[in-house]
């Protein structure tokens, strides 16, 4: 029968596709990565165990079915038998799968116990998601920073050629030491995000108002890339995770440098408080900051997305109330997507971006906002 042959050959094709995929199991574009932690390797083995059990079941079941389709077809003159139950067989195919399941459950449960045991860490990083960036805070050091997508907008809009790590690159990756148990405390400032590094087999939701735990002990130095895994709004696809694992000595040097840089930046910020910047400087710095931080929602032309993100062009708040304008950038607005930028931006950056938005796109208020004005508002004056 022609259609029968077609049907069978299609499935054979499918199965061979699947098994040829298997021979290339090590290829990272076809299969899970083995990863660089003991846990991720256990997870990989578990995945392959499950996969092969499923393949065997599929071959047996489909094999029996295709055999019947060939041998027991009417066109081959086969007469139907008359049986329609068999208690022994039915008990067997209830009990045997149950036993196979127990065989799967035992290694799965033991790997799970290992994964969920985040006790006795060597160090801790607080990971906070917000629309659409990650913030890392080293709990044992005075170091914290935001980590934002570094792929140029022009690449996304197909104006420039796409780079090798398109959408999987950030301005400031998380840096951790190899060989140490690093605990991640994971939370969110707005909606639910999910922090995922496939090479560590770590994926944990960042829930606003709650803190989740995960951990990794990385065996090999390297750069490991992942993404936000939980739909978190418009730019969910543009929120990568990049982690660099360094040898402990190298890491120690790096974290010391970062602490010094943080101190220097604070001093610099204080120094800038006393200085006034010119309109040109403010506008130039402001445009840069605006495009990097604000344009995702309010758009490069300041017009926002009607019904989703408000327009800044001709906005009543901007045109009429400078204090309220600074306040909304510094503190955000509760119950909306407008978040607080006091942590992410320095006072002079806030001053510049406020000046920029007060004067760009024909807003033309002519107002200059200086870092000290921002400082005054933050100090509650």
């Amino acid at each position: 029968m022609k259609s029968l042959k077609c049907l069978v050959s299609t499935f054979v094709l499918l199965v061979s596709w699947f098994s040829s995929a298997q021979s290339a199991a090590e290829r990272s574009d076809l299969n899970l990565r083995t990863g660089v932690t003991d846990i991720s390797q256990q997870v990989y083995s578990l995945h392959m165990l499950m996969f092969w059990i499923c393949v065997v079941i599929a071959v047996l079941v489909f094999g029996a079915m295709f055999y019947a389709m060939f041998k027991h077809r009417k066109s081959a003159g086969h007469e139907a038998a008359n049986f329609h139950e068999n208690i022994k067989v039915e008990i067997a195919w209830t009990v045997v799968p149950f036993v196979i399941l127990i065989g799967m459950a035992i290694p799965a449960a033991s790997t799970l116990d290992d994964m969920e045991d985040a006790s006795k860490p060597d160090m801790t990083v607080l990971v906070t998601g917000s629309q659409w960036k990650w913030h890392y805070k080293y709990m044992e050091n005075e170091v914290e920073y935001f980590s934002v997508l570094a792929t140029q907008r022009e690449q996304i809009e197909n104006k420039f050629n796409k780079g090798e790590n398109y959408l999987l690159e950030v301005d400031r990756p998380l840096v951790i030491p190899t060989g140490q148990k690093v605990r991640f405390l994971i939370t969110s400032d707005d909606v639910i995000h999910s922090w995922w590094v496939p090479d560590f087999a770590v994926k944990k939701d960042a829930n606003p108002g709650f803190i989740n735990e995960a951990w990794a002990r990385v065996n090999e130095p390297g750069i490991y890339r992942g993404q936000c895994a939980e739909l978190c709004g418009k730019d969910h696809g543009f929120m990568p995770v990049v982690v660099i694992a360094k040898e402990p000595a190298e890491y120690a040097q790096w974290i010391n440098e970062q602490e010094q840089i943080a101190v220097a930046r604070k001093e610099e910020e204080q120094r800038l408080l006393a200085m006034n910047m010119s309109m040109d400087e403010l506008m130039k710095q402001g445009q840069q900051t605006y495009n990097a931080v604000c344009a995702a929602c309010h758009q490069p032309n300041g017009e926002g997305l009607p019904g989703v993100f408000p327009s800044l062009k001709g906005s009543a708040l901007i045109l009429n109330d400078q204090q309220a304008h600074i306040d909304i950038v510094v503190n955000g607005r509760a119950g909306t997507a407008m978040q607080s930028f006091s942590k992410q931006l320095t006072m002079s950056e806030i001053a510049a971006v406020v000046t920029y938005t007060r004067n760009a796109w024909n807003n033309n208020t002519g107002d200059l906002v200086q870092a000290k004005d921002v400082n005054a508002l933050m100090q509650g004056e």
Partner: protein
Amino acid sequence: MTTLTDDVKDPATDDASHDGHAHDDHSHDDHHHHIPKGISRWLLTTNHKDIGTLYLWFAFIMFLVGGAMAMVIRAELFQPGLQIVEPNFFNQMTTVHGLIMVFGAVMPAFTGLANWLVPMMIGAPDMALPRMNNWSFWILPFAFLILLSSLFMEGGGPSFGWTFYAPLSTTYSGDSTALFVFSVHIMGISSIMGAINVIVTIFNMRAPGMTLMKMPMFVWTWLITAFLLIAVMPVLAGVVTMVLTDKYFGTSFFDAAGGGDPVLFQHIFWFFGHPEVYIMILPAFGIISQIVPTFSRKKLFGYASMVYATASIALLSFVVWAHHMFTTGMPVEWEKFFMFATMLISVPTGVKVFNWVATMWRGSLTFEIPMLFAIAFIVLFTIGGLSGLMLAITPVDFQYHDTYFVVAHFHYVLVTGAVFSIMAAVYYWLPKWTGRMFDITLAKWHFWCSLISVNVLFFPMHFVGLAGMPRRIPDYALQFADFNKWISVGGFAFGLSQLIFLALLVKACRKRGEPVSDQVWDGAEGLEWEIPSPAPYHTFDTPPQIK
């Protein structure tokens, strides 16, 4: 079995002026011989066959609308970069595609099949509550008009995924949320009314001698599905109402700042959502259990174990919901409980697949169109079931969760599972409904094009998922580009293949094709094959006797 006394005369003999009085004298015996004409027939109908037809056409139209949205998604994902739609609109497409396919296509299609078939299979003259039946259908188009019209609002329609996780759907959503909530309420009311109708019909209107354990499997699976619907649709109504009050009335069910918990949303949603996926597959099991014996010319193997397996799946579906939430940060004991409970579901599901294969074993097989779809269902649904078993294993689920591996899994069970079973059912019973054989050449084209394209569409999703591509993203890293191109090509081909189905259905409804016998398929057994083809407008005025 009695000879059937119901022999309906051509309705055209009724005087047209009688129309306006039709409902004044419905106590008259001859009233039911009257089929109203024109639009009022469809608007006012209380006939289970008419309502079944309405449901099925509505579901098919929604399938095409939801499919068109999938085409938008696949066009954007054809290559990396943003080229066709903005991310915000992309998210609206994934959201509304999901809602339409679940609530607008698959569920109404099954309700349509239940309307047509349950009375005919149990020897009842109609559904038990015919006016409610009319109502439960006619509120549906309004629900979807509301949902679809929200896409044209300023800011667009819902964009938080069909799972509408808080607080993305509360604090951070647009004003279309109110319309979304309202339309989901209407869909839920419609489903509950449909479910009540099925239960009352099955419990009260079976022909004498039709004991529960003599009912066809399709009737059994729908009976159990109806109980699932009544159990969980109110939960969905509750959770959308909580979203509504969180967003507009200052409650904080899902807001930690007010003492709530965003993860609570997921618990409530999936307490509805997991039984919901069985609502979309149990009737499919019923359909396959009708078709496979017919074309094997052999009784269904293990009827009783099929019934018990269906019931066990339904019961277990209430204790596995949190396997959708392994990454939310549950205590490890809960994770184990939900992992084990989920794995357990594969036992009764396996029993079903084994029973179908055993039914075919040593049968006398032929491969007409419904059987081709049924066989494709068994193989491809099983692939979806096996990837489901992999997903149940919590430690590896951490890797699979929210990737295209999950997208592949649920499209295998819902498209090559539920949707293929609906197509199988339509091909199986269409000749009974129209009295004529459908265009077999078109049907073959439809089957083969669908079968090949659906696998090109969904199979590579396993690979990109394992390689690390998250779901619900409008743009992706370069290593996923090759497979995504193939997936999109498969998607367009699968979408276009459904136009063949449309042409076939239009042709069938215009009564083209060879007349068929009452039994239609050599080997078909059951009450619906003993009434004339096409099935008269009213059947079983006098109940048949079942021995």
